[in-house]
């Protein structure tokens, strides 16, 4: 047996190898066929062979298929194919044999499933990619020996046979068949209907030969199949049908593993069962039909030829232009009259409504806020005259009005294609004979073949007379309306978004409550706006207005210039809208004329069409409203208006409360409603000049109630304002409430930001509010506002300049001596109180402002925005310079103090900043100096900055202090040259010491690689950081100290002395060693600096250890005749006095006269010196030198 298997495997490999010689492949196949056929009686053997064959993995089978398809000609290929067919037949026959074992059957089933996949067409929905999918779509119709149609038929009959087996087979084989359908459905979803039907049929007809457990298992498998299909194709046109079948098979058990939207749907169905029943009763006509549809389909049975023909017909296979052409050609064959007739008075055939509903539903998700803008859809209302269905029966009327209304609200969004489609469908109903070619539109291919014609025959309009309306007392009326409205609101729960999503698929819903949420919202909104506040006469007028407008819109040739202007559909500016309205007012007269004419001509029609906008009119219309009774009408209308106003406001209040219950979820409803109000106001304003609009009232009312409820991070508020139809200034003003609230400040600002960005008309007042917050006196509020505003600078074309102007203005306020009064940041409800309060406040503030001088906080709040902008746009800084020159000293000080972070941020690499420094205005020297200091605080000045400052220094005769910041950028000789000027700053006060000290540390800031210096510098952070700089400092401490001694000509000694003293105070730089080095250097020079001895005295005082060192150099100075310079000489004597007895050795080296001079000046030295000599000198020394000392020191022999 094993050898057979191996043999089969080899043969199969050869046969499926596309690269092998055709001859070889054929031989292999033939051999294989013989294996299957031959030695026929050995069932065991056959089984093995078949098993091996059938267990070939799919990719191999598919490789064969591709092989066949690619092989276009040749005897070999044909023979090859024939053999293949024989094998196929043989294997299929296993299923028919009663003695075949179950294991083989399961494999054969799977084999057949693969064949069905390969021998059918790829469709758009297939889960496999087209190029990966081995299907008949790969096989050209002209293939020499493969006939696609025949093969497809074969596949369908195989599938049908498999489905038939469900009846006869054993439990496990049935589950095998069911499970084999999985991949088939994924790649060929077109078969779902037949398969699902087969499942349902199997379930409905009990199978006797199966045990309970088996039935349970089979049902389970079927359900899993269907659920798996729903998961893979949730939006398929068959999804709802499959879902229904699933429920029929007991799918409720698997509710937990259903895809989410179907779970929701199920829940909805359960909860809305009552509603559904009522609806079904009420909307008997088309829903009854649609719920019948699946049944019709089921009647078609398994593999019904019609369904198959349709499934074979794939419109998407044709190129689009071709389809369009066919549609157009067909339309041209229809006479214009008939077409018009079809559009104007369509037969209320259910399928048309379906198609329409379908269209609108598919549109729904694509709606965006812009399209909802009523300004864009002014042209739409009543494009469609009432259909006869409306007169038929009040119940039907409501439904069809909804459809009608919805249709009209979306009609302008439809693409031409879709319009074509709907027209095409209507035509089809009118002309059954032409429906074949028209049927190629996608909608038709999706809908079932038998439905469109059928209802036409069954549904006939019967004449119907309206019963007398029941009249109700006003209170009854009101309570009834209230009740109804709350009922309507209750309905929302049923219409969740999920439902809408699902129905956006093209499947025609089969249940009664098929309204989507957006439809519901529109209906509720219209009910509240137009439904309640217009009586039929007004509504007629409105309709006329709209029609008038439509005519104008379409007839451009008539339009004069003004008209054209007003017809701009995308007008953004409210101004233009107003213009538009005004123009409409002018036309009002005409409208009235038309109205009269029309009414006389056809008063019946007007009566019918009037309530079209007004679905509540059934309740509302009372006998008094007889149009011809005009004499006493005026008063009654007046009264009725007040009454109606009250009533509608009451209902609107219910709406507000309802929205507030869950603002976030119902925001869409709120917006829809507000749009309707707005639109209605627009219409009414054209009709009645002194009409008072409702929209602002209710918008305000809604905002006032919503705002306290919203949380800090609530995006809903922003979204709400962004989407609202029109923002009035006082509405935007309400945002201040948020801005003033520390917790929700961010919300306020981000809302303002979004409004400014996305709603240009509101920009002026939003920006005004936002900018005022930029000079708010609370720091946190202010900085949030500034951060918000800064985002527009410098890139936003309009806003940036406005922000800049405002920033400059507020900065310029600093020029004044007094600070301006605070703005009023509070939101004041109601305009009257605003004025009153403002008056009081301004009085108070004028009183205060008399003695209001600038405080730092005040000045700061005027500066911060500007500083913020400067950080983005450096050139603005020039403004600050000019303000600085004009400002009072206090302000100047504040500026100097607060400018640091900004300058730090800008840095010295900004060419704009450098430019400003270069050209700074007279009077702002201190500011420039401050900026320089900040710039160079922690880093070395760039060469560019250095050169600018150098120029300034020479050209504008700047204070030497300005050199300090850049000193480390100067060359050594430049420093030495300018050092005297800087030392001029010293006036012997502590205050002036500081810059010099700073100067010194800057000069020395990059220490030479002298180890001792480096380590000692580490203690001073500012130096050590810059010490890391790769460059070495321009001067070493030693050089500096020496230099300070050598400026006798240019600097007063007093100042030099101060400078030296400062050096000594910087102990960490001027260490003992440095000083010793300097002293040595000076001692080596030919002439002694005047201050040498001064330094020596200082040094030894500070570092006593140096005394020994000094005592060694001093004798050298004798040769330079130290006594010739009186200052030096004095210093010398002082040193010797201070440092006795170690200095005596030096002293004793002086020539006799000089020593005498010393002793004369400092007599106190005599005795110690004498003692020293006596003690230390030995015999020889005494002998040599005593003679001249003896006299001086009075030493006795």
């Amino acid at each position: 047996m094993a050898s057979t298997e191996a043999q089969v495997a080899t043969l199969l490999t050869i046969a499926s190898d596309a690269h092998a010689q055709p001859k070889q492949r054929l031989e292999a196949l033939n051999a294989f066929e013989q294996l299957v056929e031959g030695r026929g009686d050995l069932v065991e053997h056959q089984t093995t062979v078949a098993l091996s064959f059938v267990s070939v993995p799919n990719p191999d089978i598919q490789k064969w298929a591709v092989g066949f398809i690619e092989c276009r000609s040749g005897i070999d290929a044909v023979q090859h194919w024939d053999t293949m067919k024989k094998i196929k037949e043989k294997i299929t026959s296993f299923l028919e044999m009663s003695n075949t074992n179950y294991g083989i059957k399961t494999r054969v089933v799977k084999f057949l499933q693969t064949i069905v996949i390969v021998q059918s067409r790829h469709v758009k929905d297939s889960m496999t990619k087209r190029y990966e999918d081995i299907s008949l779509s790969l096989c050209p119709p002209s293939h020499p020996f493969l006939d696609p149609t025949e093969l497809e038929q074969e596949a369908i009959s195989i599938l049908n046979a498999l489905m038939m087996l469900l009846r006869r087979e054993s439990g496990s084989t049935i589950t095998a068949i069911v499970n084999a359908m999985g991949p088939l459905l994924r790649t060929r979803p077109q078969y779902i209907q037949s398969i699902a039907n087969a499942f349902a049929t199997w379930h409905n007809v009990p199978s006797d030969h199966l045990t309970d457990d088996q039935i349970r298992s089979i049902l389970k498998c079927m359900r899993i199949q269907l659920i798996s299909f729903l998961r893979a194709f949730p939006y398929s046109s068959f999804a709802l049908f499959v879902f229904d079948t699933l429920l029929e098979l007991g799918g409720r058990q698997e509710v937990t593993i259903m895809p989410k939207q179907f779970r929701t749907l199920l829940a909805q169905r359960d909860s809305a069962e009552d509603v559904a029943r009522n609806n079904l009763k009420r909307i008997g006509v088309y829903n009854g039909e649609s719920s019948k549809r699946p049944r019709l389909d089921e009647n078609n049975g398994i593999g019904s030829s019609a369904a198959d023909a349709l499934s074979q017909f794939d419109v998407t296979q044709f190129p689009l232009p071709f389809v369009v052409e066919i549609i157009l050609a067909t339309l041209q064959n229809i006479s214009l009259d008939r077409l018009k007739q079809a559009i104007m008075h369509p037969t209320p055939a259910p399928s048309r409504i379906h198609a329409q509903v379908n269209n609108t539903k598919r549109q729904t998700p694509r709606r965006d806020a812009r399209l909802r803008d009523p300004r864009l859809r002014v042209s739409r209302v009543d494009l469609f005259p009432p259909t006869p269905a409306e007169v038929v029966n009040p119940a039907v009327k409501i439904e069809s009005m909804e459809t009608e209304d919805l249709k009209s609200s979306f009609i302008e969004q439809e693409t031409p294609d879709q319009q074509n489609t709907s027209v095409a469908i209507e035509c089809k109903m009118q002309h059954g004979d032409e429906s074949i070619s028209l049927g190629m539109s996608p909608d038709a291919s999706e809908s079932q073949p038998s439905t469109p014609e059928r209802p036409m025959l069954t549904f006939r309009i019967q004449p119907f007379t309206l019963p007398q309306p029941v009249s109700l007392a006003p209170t009854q009326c009101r309570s009834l309306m209230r009740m109804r409205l709350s009922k309507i609101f209750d309905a929302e729960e049923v219409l969740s978004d999920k439902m809408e999503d699902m129905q956006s698929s093209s499947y025609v819903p089969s249940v009664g409550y098929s309204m989507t949420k957006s439809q519901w919202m529109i209906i509720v909104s219209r009910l509240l706006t137009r439904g309640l506040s217009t009586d039929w006469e007004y509504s007629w007028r409105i309709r006329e207005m709209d029609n008038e407008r439509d005519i104008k819109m379409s007839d451009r040739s008539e339009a004069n210039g003004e008209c054209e202007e007003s017809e701009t559909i995308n007008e953004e500016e409210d101004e233009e809208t107003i213009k538009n309205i005004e123009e409409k007012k002018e036309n009002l007269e005409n409208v009235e004329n038309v109205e009269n004419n029309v009414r006389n001509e056809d008063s019946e029609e007007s009566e019918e069409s009037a309530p079209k906008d007004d679905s509540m009119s059934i309740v509302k219309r009372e006998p008094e409203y007889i149009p011809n009774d005009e004499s006493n009408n005026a008063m009654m209308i007046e009264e009725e208006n007040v009454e109606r106003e009250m009533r509608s406001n009451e209902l609107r209040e219910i709406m507000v409360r309802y929205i507030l219950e869950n603002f976030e979820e119902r925001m869409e409803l709120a917006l829809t409603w507000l749009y309707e109000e707005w639109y209605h106001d627009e219409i009414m304003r054209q009709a009645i000049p002194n009409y008072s609009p409702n929209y602002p009232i209710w918008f305000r009312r809604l905002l006032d109630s919503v705002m306290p409820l919203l949380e800090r991070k609530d995006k809903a508020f922003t979204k709400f304002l962004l989407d609202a139809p029109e923002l009035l200034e006082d509405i935007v003003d309400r945002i201040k409430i948020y801005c003033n609230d520390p917790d929700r400040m961010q919300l306020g600002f981000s809302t303002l930001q979004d409004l400014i960005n996305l709603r240009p008309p509101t920009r002026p007042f939003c920006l005004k509010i936002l900018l005022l917050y930029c000079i708010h006196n609370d720091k946190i509020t202010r900085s949030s506002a500034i951060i918000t505003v800064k985002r527009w600078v410098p890139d936003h074309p309009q806003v940036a300049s406005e922000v800049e102007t405002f920033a400059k203005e507020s900065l310029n306020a600093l020029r004044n001596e007094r600070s301006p009064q605070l703005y009023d940041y509070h939101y004041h409800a109601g305009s009257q109180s605003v004025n009153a309060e403002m008056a009081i406040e301004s009085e108070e503030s004028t009183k205060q402002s008399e003695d209001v001088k600038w405080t730092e906080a005040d000045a700061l709040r005027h500066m911060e925005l500007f500083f913020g902008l400067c950080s983005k746009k450096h050139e603005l800084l020039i403004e600050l310079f000019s303000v600085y020159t004009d400002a009072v000293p206090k302000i100047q000080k504040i500026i100097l103090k607060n400018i640091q972070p900004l300058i730090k941020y800008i840095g010295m690499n900004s060419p704009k900043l450098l430019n400003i420094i270069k050209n700074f205005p007279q009077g702002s020297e201190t500011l420039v100096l401050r900026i320089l200091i900040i710039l160079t605080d922690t880093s070395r000045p760039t060469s560019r900055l250095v050169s600018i400052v150098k120029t300034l220094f020479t050209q504008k005769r700047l204070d030497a202090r300005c050199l300090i910041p850049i000193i480390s950028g100067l060359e050594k000789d430049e420093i030495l040259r300018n050092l005297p000027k800087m030392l001029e700053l010293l006036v012997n006060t502590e205050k002036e010491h500081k810059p010099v000290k700073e100067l010194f540390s800057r000069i020395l800031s990059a220490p030479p690689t002298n180890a001792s210096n480096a380590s000692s510098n580490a203690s001073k952070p500012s130096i050590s950081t810059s010490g890391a700089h790769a460059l070495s400092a321009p001067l070493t401490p030693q050089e500096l100290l020496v230099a300070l001694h050598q400026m006798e000509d240019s600097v007063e000694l007093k100042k030099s002395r101060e400078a030296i003293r400062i050096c000594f105070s910087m102990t960490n730089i001027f260490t003992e060693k440095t000083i010793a080095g300097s002293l040595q250097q000076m001692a080596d020079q030919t002439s002694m600096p005047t201050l040498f001895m001064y330094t020596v005295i200082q040094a030894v005082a500070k570092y006593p250890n140096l005394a020994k060192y000094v005592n060694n150099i001093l004798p050298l100075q004798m040769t330079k005749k130290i006594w010739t310079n009186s200052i030096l000489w004095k210093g010398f004597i002082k040193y010797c006095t201070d440092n006795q007895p170690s200095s005596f050795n030096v002293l004793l080296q002086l020539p006799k006269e000089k020593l005498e001079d010393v002793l004369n000046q400092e007599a106190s030295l005599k005795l110690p010196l004498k003692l020293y000599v006596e003690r230390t000198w030995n015999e020889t020394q005494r002998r040599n030198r005593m003679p001249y000392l003896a006299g001086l020191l009075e030493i006795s022999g």
Partner: protein
Amino acid sequence: MLVSKKGFKVASFGTGSAVRLPGQSIDKPNIYPFGTPYDHIYQDLQKKDFRLYSQNGLLDMLDRNRKIKRAPERWQDTTGFYDVIVTCEERCFDAVCEDLIGRGEERNLPVHIINVEIKDNHEDAMLGGKAILQLAEMVEKASNVDQDMQTILEKWKEKSKYSYLHCVAYF
């Protein structure tokens, strides 16, 4: 476990998205990703509440499991082919069937999936385990599993009184 003790070639899997073990209350299960070693889980639970988890037998179970294999595995992540799959909960049966459909059934290898509904507690698991062992032995004895599966199941049902779900699916 019993089945493997008797020397069958067995692998075990979970079908959920994570390993969920009972926690201190019903709404606070202990959740670990698949692949977390049993030993790790054991240590973790021991640290959390030794008394509770030894009392409800969780630690015993983990201790036993960690001796058998390193970590719990997830069915959806496996690539191997099996002849018979036994699930102990309808949920798992559904998951396995759906998963096989999703895999595409490209290998054309039939597999028997059998669900035996066992309550997920120690005692029932013990009894259920025994029943499954019985079933496995019966399947093993069969000369042609595909042919005899139905008969085996019926016989087994009579003996064990468990109801079952069975289907043939494909790898």
